[in-house]
């Protein structure tokens, strides 16, 4: 039986780990490679790096981080943030990333998703959707949640599936950083509308939130702060989910 995945995410800035509250107010806290190794040794099913300020600052630091991580961790590594072109994707994969997540560029240029999934295979193309509630539906935002687009999140999810995305990483902008749980309705709506796996993200504060995320129909749950600040270990999270009869790899 396929197990539900727990994916700790590390926000990386200039080669160092940070975690923002609602994408601002960053705190510095450590070496990403060391952190990733702790996570993979603790049973993380995948590791995710989000290079949060990649668009404006020194890009090359992330390549070195990815290179070092892939020589030390032997679980899948997803890297996102500032990915603009086929060449960016190629460079990250060559450094040892297994998947690349594309956010702003997928909105501005859906052809990038089409081209890169053809060139590298759907298995390594993740489209990251940042969605914010707008009346009864959700709207997608770009540039780390700064810019509104007027695009409906569900329609965009369908479009990305058709373009060849292998997975969708769905973050609720309303919930991100609040530790009040995933936007369950958003996750359920998107995962029931597409036939590719959905990774739920944004808002985890307790282990029960992870369970709710899985029950919403997501194939994987991503969390940053609860693991990063040591509130819970990945192993504790898995034990908890197993105790709730949610299939996980232990």
């Amino acid at each position, binding site marked *: 039986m396929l197990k539900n995945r727990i994916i700790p995410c590390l926000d990386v800035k200039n080669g160092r780990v940070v975690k923002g509250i609602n994408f601002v107010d960053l705190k510095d806290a450590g070496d990403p490679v060391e952190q990733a190794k702790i996570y993979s040794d603790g049973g993380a099913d995948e590791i995710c790096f989000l290079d949060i300020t990649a668009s404006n600052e020194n890009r090359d630091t992330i390549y070195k981080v990815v290179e070092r991580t*892939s020589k030390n961790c032997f679980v899948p590594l997803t890297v996102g943030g500032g990915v603009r072109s086929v060449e960016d994707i190629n460079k990250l*994969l*060559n450094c040892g990333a297994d998947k690349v997540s594309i956010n702003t560029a997928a909105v501005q240029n859906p052809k990038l998703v089409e081209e890169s999934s053809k060139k*590298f295979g759907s*298995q390594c193309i993740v489209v990251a959707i940042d969605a914010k509630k707008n009346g009864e539906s959700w709207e997608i935002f770009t540039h780390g949640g700064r810019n509104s687009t007027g695009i409906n999140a569900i329609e965009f999810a369908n479009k990305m599936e058709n373009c060849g995305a292998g997975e969708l990483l769905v973050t609720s902008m309303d919930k991100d950083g609040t530790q009040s749980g995933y936007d369950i309705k958003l996750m359920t709506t998107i995962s029931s509308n597409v036939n590719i*796996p959905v990774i739920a993200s944004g808002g985890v504060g307790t282990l029960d939130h992870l369970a709710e995320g899985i029950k919403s129909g997501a194939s994987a749950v991503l969390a940053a702060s609860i693991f990063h600040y040591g509130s819970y270990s990945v192993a504790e999270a898995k034990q908890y989910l197993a105790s709730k009869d949610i299939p996980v*790899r232990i």
Partner: protein
Amino acid sequence: MNVTIVDYNSGNISSVINSFKEVAKDKVNIEVTSDLNKIKSSDKVVLPGQGSFKSCVGALKDIKGLVDTLNDFAINNKKPLLGICVGLQMFADVGYEEKETKGLGWIPGKVSIIDNQNRKYKLPHIGWNEINITKDSKIFKGIENKSHMYFVHSYEFIPEDKNIISATTDYSSSIVCAVEKENIFGTQFHPEKSDKIGLKIINNFINL
């Protein structure tokens, strides 16, 4: 000893290289090349593969003499070869991803899309799944039945001869996830991404 990872522009093989180097340390020489002479003279060959069946077969054929060299290595000289993911799928006669494409024809069978049972199951089949070991395979030495391996694929290999199957995994149906036919080994899952247990499989192959 030399182990060669065939570098034929089949997509991302960094993780395969890193994992083999991690296991080999300084004891075994790991080559990453498409040089025909180096492949011929190596003791073992790893055939990775990412992307589609069609693009991987196309990439193999684009390197002049590579298919013949691999045939010599695995079929005529019967030296150990490990196919990973699409590398395993290419052992088949034919694949149906994108369009009907001839494979290497080493193990009779076909590669078809996984039946998602009317969208009941998501594709790709991504994540950690248990393997059911169905026969004693040399690369499973010390690997417990029901161990978790990391998968990411939408197509499955359906071999004609069920005796070559060494493990299956359960998703929408029972999916063949490892084969062993004499000197030819293959895994649908990614041992290079399956943590310590995956590295053990790589170690078993290196130490054959």
